[in-house]
């Protein structure tokens, strides 16, 4: 039985309070893309430790004695999986499905999901964060670069969504 979504303002308040708790208790905000980067670094370190050591960016995360996974964000990420799952479970929204627009096929959606994921992740590295890290956390702490990134992201997304509207409507 699928329950309706929570009122967006309430959901937003819930997220906002989580973010505030993160700031007040642990002195840092939320983030998601960082964990993906750290996961990749961890695997790379396992297979090609010398390569990680020699790459300035990867070495920051996993060089020397550093364990890329021993980080606040990684544990946060695991929590997000659990929280998302629990919410889906109690709301009857655990469903193996592919969400796509009416004018494309599920397979096409899969392909675009991958491409979009690739582009977004690449962008998140340049911007030093994704929407959780930059827009939410950087936004709440009034970080200059974060606000610039967030506003440009939204504007570009609207333009890009118009170009790619066949994917969704």
């Amino acid at each position, binding site marked *: 039985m699928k329950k*309706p*979504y929570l*009122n*967006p*303002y309430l959901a937003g308040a819930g997220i906002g309070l989580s973010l505030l708790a993160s700031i007040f208790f642990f*002195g*840092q*905000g939320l*983030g*998601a*893309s*960082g964990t993906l980067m750290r996961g990749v670094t961890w695997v790379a370190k396992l297979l090609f430790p010398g390569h990680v050591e020699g790459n300035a960016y990867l070495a920051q995360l996993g060089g*020397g*004695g*550093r*364990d890329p996974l*021993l*980080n*606040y*964000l990684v544990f946060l990420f695991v929590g997000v999986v659990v929280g998302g799952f629990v919410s889906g479970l109690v709301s009857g929204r655990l469903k193996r499905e592919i969400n796509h627009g009416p004018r494309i096929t599920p397979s096409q959606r899969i392909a675009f999901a991958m491409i979009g994921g690739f582009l977004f992740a690449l962008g*998140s590295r340049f911007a*030093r*964060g*994704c929407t*959780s*890290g*930059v827009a939410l*956390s950087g936004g709440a702490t009034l970080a200059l670069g974060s606000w610039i990134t967030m506003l440009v992201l939204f504007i570009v997304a609207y333009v890009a969504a118009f170009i790619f509207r066949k994917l969704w409507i």
Partner: protein
Amino acid sequence: MKTPAVIRNSYYALLVLFAVWLALLGQPSRAPADRPLAPIGAIDLARMMVEGRRNFSVIDLTGSPEEFHLKGALKADLARDLTPQVLEFVGGNRGQAIILVGASEAQVRPLAAPLVKKRFRVLAVPGGIGEWKSQVLEPANGSPELMALSRYLQGKSAEGAAAATLQQVPPGGKVQRRARPSTGGGGGC
């Protein structure tokens, strides 16, 4: 998803109230510059080390570059910004206590501020590393704090507690970082 108008308008009104409150705040009561350098003294440091709650590193601000191999501490120039070198040295482990030997707190304060912001505990010890060693190892007229520190450090190793506390730097100067858990340097996305 339709939010009932009453709820929506109450929410908006609440936001307006907060906006007014924030706009009227003015400047914060405590300027950042007034905040203490770091909430730590020698005895607190000793206590924390005894309790195993802190790792610490010693950084020598005096002496010549050649000497630092013997001392096993990082040679840092007081005239330059300490922070990048210190962070490299301590591996970005938040919460570490850093003992800066060879400067007074007044001298160290402006340089240590970025470290404090990254949540390191900074203890400034005037005098040279030799003095500090002798003070710590043989505190004839040492303060109770230093004696406590000395007792703790002496318990650390047979060859001399101060040496044991220093990170060993092999010839060539490449800093060896002991592997230890890090919360990633304090933040990031």
